[in-house]
């Protein structure tokens, strides 16, 4: 489980002489086991927020604390280690490696962590859980989009992270597959108590979350439980 604290988190980009405020002073807490959807128009800062939470970016200012660790004080290698052990990523384009088979793709994050005990078994169990145990030797390119995304979800879980970050996970799959993926995510959240933060344009996905954060121009404009958001 992961406990995230964002304090006045800000990320500016310089494009030529202009400064773009991708994320502008965001302060919020995400508690252990939450299922949070981050929504907003394109350019609202969703992906930047996800990249900051995933420790892929350093904030321009502000503070991000994960499970009590002030990530601003960590060096690049420490951030990489924290990413490897605490964070799982799922991307819209799956990002599976074509040179590896399904099982090897799932096992990829194990390479970069110290604890690889039962890694292979964990990967096989996860593939079984996402319904792909019969495809372990297949190449990623031999799978459908939905299957590839399930492989990506299995990969995100292999290091037993406490936080999974998803960037438009249903953006490249059909509605039915999207629903299957959401069901899978809910099961991970409820059974494994994994904190999930999903950035999405897909309202069906967003409405399955327990909490919905809406961004606009890099600022949080609403932060409500999903039921309340739906009523509003």
């Amino acid at each position, binding site marked *: 489980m992961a406990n995230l604290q964002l304090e006045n988190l800000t990320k500016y980009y310089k494009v030529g002489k202009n400064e773009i405020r991708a994320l502008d002073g965001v302060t919020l807490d995400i508690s252990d086991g939450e299922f949070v959807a981050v929504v907003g128009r394109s350019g609202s800062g969703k992906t930047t927020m996800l990249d900051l939470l995933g420790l*892929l970016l350093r904030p321009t200012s502000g503070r991000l604390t994960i499970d009590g660790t002030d990530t601003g004080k960590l060096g690049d290698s420490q951030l*990489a280690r924290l990413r*490897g052990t605490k964070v799982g990523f799922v991307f819209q384009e799956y990002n599976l490696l074509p*040179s590896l088979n399904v099982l*090897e793709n799932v096992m990829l*994050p194990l*390479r970069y962590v110290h604890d690889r005990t039962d890694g292979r078994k964990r990967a096989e169990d996860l593939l079984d859980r996402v319904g792909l145990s019969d495809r372990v030797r297949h190449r990623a390119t031999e799978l459908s989009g939905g299957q590839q995304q399930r492989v990506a979800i299995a990969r995100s879980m292999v290091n037993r992270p406490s936080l999974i970050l998803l960037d438009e996970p249903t953006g490249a799959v059909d509605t039915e597959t999207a629903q299957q993926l959401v069901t899978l995510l809910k099961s991970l959240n409820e059974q494994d108590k994994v904190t999930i933060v999903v950035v999405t344009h897909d309202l069906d996905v967003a409405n399955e979350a327990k909490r919905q954060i809406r961004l606009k121009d890099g600022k949080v404009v609403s932060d409500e439980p999903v039921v309340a958001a739906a009523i509003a």
Partner: protein
Amino acid sequence: MEIVRNITRRKLRSFLTISGIVIGVLALTTMGALAENFNALLDGGVKYFGSNVQVGPPDGQSASLLPLSKIDEIKQIQGVAAAFPTYGFSAKPGAVAVVSFGIPDTIVAGDPAENSWSSLKTSFASGHQLDAVTTGGVVLGSTISKEFNKKVGDSIDLPVKPADAKPDFVNHAFTVMGILNPTRTAPDTFAYLNTADGQMLLKDSLPIAIRGQIDVTKITEGIDVYGQPGTSISDLDKIADRINAEVTGVKATKTSVLVNGFKSGGAIFTSITTAAALLALLIGGLSVVNTMFMAVAERVREIGLKKAVGATTRHIMGEFLLEAVFIGVLGGLIGYGLGVAITVVANALTPPGQSTLFLVTLPLTVFALGFAAALGAVAGILPAWRAARLDPVTALRNQ
């Protein structure tokens, strides 16, 4: 396994890149084997001439003839432990001199006892050493025995009569008493006689006008002078200085002059051949640099993903370096294998009686394969560094 898959993703490009290394290592192996062979030849000279002082006629004397009595004078010089007469003749007089990496067939005569003093040790493949008194025997080096297809007990006429020899050409039949093991240096093409037979050949070689006036039993062509076993080259030089100062009618050449001559000759040859091969290999290395840069450019998203799942800068750098080293080692192994095959075939095709051209040694093997691996690593550093420094966010969203 992943490395192999990455390399085989772009089969033609990988083939061409590895071919560059293969050609470079092939050149390094064959040229290096040529240099090693030449160096082995020169090492024999260094060993032989590094253990004694060569004494010959003084400067300006055209005939290489010295009174044997000079040996007794030389033995009186401080530091001299032994001195032996030496005689040398062409085994194939009248043979046309051609460019060769070997030493021409030569008849060497002297006291068999000198063998125990020389640093250049020989051993017998068959038969045994000559003795000092029994005439008519010969010990053949490995190459010359093959050239004339002789074994122990056979007879051989020396010097070999040229096809166009005049009727008064003189040679003698000798019985092969022993055949030496290969040394890859001078003894391989030598035919060894004892002193008495050497003096007989010396008489045959003298101009008719003076032949009857010279008692060859009192003459030598040169003198090999030894200090106590283990005498250093600088001490042998001092002995040469003392001989020149105290014995008239002879010229002692400093040991260091001969040794350095052999060494510098070997160094120049090795430098030229190795430089040519390294140049070829460096060109191959540049193709590895190019391939690895292209691999990085093509796999930007992969790098971003690996960073996202926990890879550090060191991990990424290590993976790309390993891939470059793998290319280097693979190219190195294939190039080395082909190079060895070429040298084996070329040596096998060498006509009997000619020295083989190539010698693949363990140091050459280690150098060729090590250099290929190191070249891969060096060639991979910049691309790997670029890959490792990629910003993960930019890399992940690279199209």
